[in-house]
C-alpha cells in the first residue's frame, strides 16, 4: 500500500537497447522543444496501452502517463484509433514508418509486469522521425500500490528528455481543504499527489489552518494554526504526522512561515502591538533574529534557493510591494515597479524568477518577474487569484483561485511560466493555499 506520509524509493534501472528496424536517419537535432516559446504547438505523440503481464494496472498507468504529458500543454496525444501499428512485443523493432504516417513525433511503449504486490514498469521513448530511440529504455520497480508514482516517474523521464527541463510529476502538494459555508468555513491540512490523486488529511477541522509550506526535502511542513485560539506557527513532521508549536515569542501572532533551503531556519512574520515585521528562527537553537524593523507591514518572506537573500512584501510605500533583502535582514531593495499592489513573492527553486500576486483595478493576477523585478509577466487574471507555489522544476506554478459571491469557493489551479496550460487541479471539495513539495526519490 501507498503510505501517504512516507513515500518509498522506487528502483530505476536502464534497459538494454533494441535493434532498429532501419538505420537511423541523419537529423541535425534530436527531438527537443523549448517551453519558453509562447507560440509553441503541442508535440503529437503516440502511446499505445502498455503491455500487461499479470495484474490489471497497465491501462491505468498508460492513462496517467498520457494525462501528465497532456496536462503540460506541450504534448498532444494522437487518438489510438488512428494507430496503424500494433505493439504486441515490447522488445520487437519499431515500425517507424507506421508512426510517421500518423505524424507521431514521439512514440512511447511500455510493459507492466505484476507479481503479487510488486510491479515492474518498463518503457521506451522513440524519436519517430529520427528512426531512433530517445535515450535508453528504463524500468521502475516498486509496490503495486505505488503504481501512480511509477507512472509519474515514466512521464517525468519522457518530459525531461524532450523538453530538457527537470521533471516534476512525481511530487506532492500540501494544501488547505475547505468545507462549509463562507461564514463558517472549516479548514484542514491535506496532502495529495501533484495531480490531485491520493489525498490524505494531516489535521482535523477543529481549528483554522492557513498557508502550509514544505521543507525543500519534503520531510516537514510549516503552517499557521489557530489551535491555541491565536494564530501561531506550527511545524509538522510528515513521517509521524506529529506537530509542535514553534517557540512562543512575545507578541500576538506568528504567521507566514517559510523554511530556508537547508531546512535549518524559518523566516516568518511576528506581530507585536499591531505591527508586523519579519524575523528568523534557528530550529535547532530556537534563537530568534529580527530581520525588518519598520512601522509598516512586512510579511510573506521567501528565501532565494542559495539561502542568501529573502524576498518579502511591505506596504511601507503606501501599498504592498515586493522587496529583496539579505537573509541576515536589512532595509531591502524594492523590485516591483508596475501599477497596483504586489505581494506573496515566492522565489523559484531554479532561482531565475520570483512568482507573485498582483492586485490592480479590482482584479487579482498571478505573475512572474526576474529577481531584479524586470521582465514582469502576468500569467492569470480573475476575481481573486493568490498565493503562487512553484513546481520543483521551476517551470509550473500552482495557486488559489476563489470565485466571488455568497456561494464563492476556492479551488487550486495550475499554469506554466509562459501562461500556458491553465487548468484546475481536481480536489474533492474546495481547496486553497497549495505548497508544492520536492521531486520524490
Amino acid at each position, binding site marked *: 500500500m501507498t503510505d501517504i506520509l512516507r513515500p518509498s524509493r522506487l528502483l530505476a534501472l536502464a534497459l538494454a537497447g533494441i535493434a532498429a528496424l532501419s538505420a537511423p536517419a541523419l537529423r541535425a537535432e534530436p527531438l527537443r522543444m523549448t517551453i519558453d516559446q509562447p507560440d509553441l504547438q503541442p508535440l503529437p505523440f503516440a502511446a499505445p496501452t502498455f503491455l500487461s503481464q499479470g495484474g490489471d494496472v497497465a491501462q491505468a498507468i498508460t492513462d496517467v502517463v498520457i494525462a501528465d504529458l497532456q496536462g503540460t500543454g506541450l504534448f498532444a496525444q494522437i487518438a489510438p484509433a488512428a494507430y496503424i501499428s500494433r505493439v504486441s512485443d515490447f522488445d520487437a523493432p519499431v515500425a517507424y514508418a507506421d508512426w510517421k504516417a500518423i505524424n507521431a513525433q514521439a512514440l512511447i511503449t511500455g510493459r507492466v509486469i505484476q507479481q503479487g504486490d510488486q510491479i515492474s514498469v518498463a518503457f521506451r521513448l522513440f524519436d519517430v522521425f529520427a528512426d531512433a530511440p530517445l535515450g535508453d529504455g528504463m524500468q521502475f520497480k516498486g509496490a503495486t500500490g505505488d503504481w501512480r508514482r511509477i507512472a509519474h516517474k515514466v512521464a517525468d523521464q519522457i518530459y525531461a528528455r524532450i523538453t530538457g527541463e527537470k521533471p516534476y510529476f512525481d511530487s506532492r502538494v500540501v494544501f488547505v481543504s475547505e468545507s462549509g459555508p463562507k461564514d463558517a468555513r472549516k479548514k484542514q491540512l491535506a496532502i495529495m499527489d501533484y495531480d490531485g490523486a491520493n489525498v490524505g488529511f494531516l489535521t482535523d*477541522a477543529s481549528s483554522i489552518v492557513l498557508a502550509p509550506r514544505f521543507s525543500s526535502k519534503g520531510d516537514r511542513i510549516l503552517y499557521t494554526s489557530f489551535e491555541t485560539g491565536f494564530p501561531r506557527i506550527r511545524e509538522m513532521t510528515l513521517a509521524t504526522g506529529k506537530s509542535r508549536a514553534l517557540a512562543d515569542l512575545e507578541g500576538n501572532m506568528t504567521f507566514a512561515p517559510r523554511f530556508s533551503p537547508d531546512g535549518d531556519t524559518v523566516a516568518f*512574520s511576528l506581530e507585536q502591538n*499591531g505591527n508586523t515585521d519579519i524575523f528568523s528562527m534557528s530550529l535547532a537553537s530556537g534563537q530568534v533574529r529580527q530581520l525588518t524593523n519598520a512601522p509598516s507591514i512586512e510579511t510573506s518572506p521567501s528565501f532565494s534557493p542559495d539561502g542568501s537573500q529573502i524576498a518579502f512584501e511591505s506596504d511601507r510605500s503606501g501599498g504592498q510591494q515586493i522587496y529583496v533583502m539579505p537573509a541576515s535582514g536589512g532595509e531591502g531593495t524594492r523590485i516591483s515597479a508596475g501599477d497596483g499592489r504586489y505581494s506573496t513573492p515566492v522565489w523559484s527553486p531554479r532561482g531565475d524568477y520570483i512568482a507573485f500576486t498582483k492586485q490592480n483595478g479590482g482584479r487579482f493576477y498571478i505573475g512572474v518577474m526576474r529577481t531584479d523585478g524586470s521582465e514582469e509577466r502576468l500569467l492569470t487574471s480573475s476575481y*481573486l487569484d493568490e498565493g503562487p507555489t512553484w513546481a520543483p522544476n521551476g517551470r509550473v506554478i500552482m495557486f488559489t483561485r476563489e470565485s466571488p459571491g455568497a456561494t464563492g469557493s476556492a479551488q487550486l489551479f495550475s499554469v506554466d511560466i509562459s501562461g500556458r496550460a491553465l487548468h484546475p487541479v481536481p480536489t474533492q471539495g474546495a481547496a486553497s493555499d497549495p505548497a508544492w513539495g520536492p521531486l520524490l526519490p
Partner: protein
Amino acid sequence: MQKISTIVLFVAALATAACNNPNRNGMGGAGGAGGMGGAGAIGSASDPNSPAYFAQTLGDMVHFVVDQSTLTPEAQAILTKQAAWLVQHPNYTAIVQGHADEQGTREYNLALGARRAESVKQFLIANGVSGTRLKTISYGKEQPIALCSDESCFQQNRRAKTALQLGGGV
C-alpha cells in the same frame, strides 16, 4: 520569560471561559478566541449592566475604510461608549477581534486585522480602560459576516469587534 507564561495562562483561562459559555459568539465554528456578545450575548439589551447591552445597544463593532486602520468619527463615538462601559464594569475583560474584507491576500489581511484590533485597543486605553484587560486577535479575511462580493458586504467585513469576557485579569 515572565511574559510568556502570562500568555499561556491567559489562553488556558480563555479556553475555559469559552467552554463554559454556550452563548459565545465570534467563534466561526473554527476554534477562534471567542467572546460573548452580538446577538447571542447574555442578558437583556435594555439592562445597562449586561453584555447584551454592550453588544447591541452601545455597539460592539466598528468599521474601517479600505486598507485603513484609522478610526472614523463614527467608530470613535462607539468606542468612547465602549470604553466608558468597560471602565464601569471592571469585572469584564475584552478581546478585540480584527477582520479584513476578502479583497486582499491572506497574510497581508492577517497583519491588517491585527493593526485594526490594535488601533481599537489603543483608543480604549486612551479612554481609561487598563491595557491589562484588553487582548487583540486577527482573523484576517477568514471570518466574513457579510457574504456578497461587493462593497456593501466588504464594508461590513472590515471590522473590529470588542468581545467581552467575564472575569479574570488578562
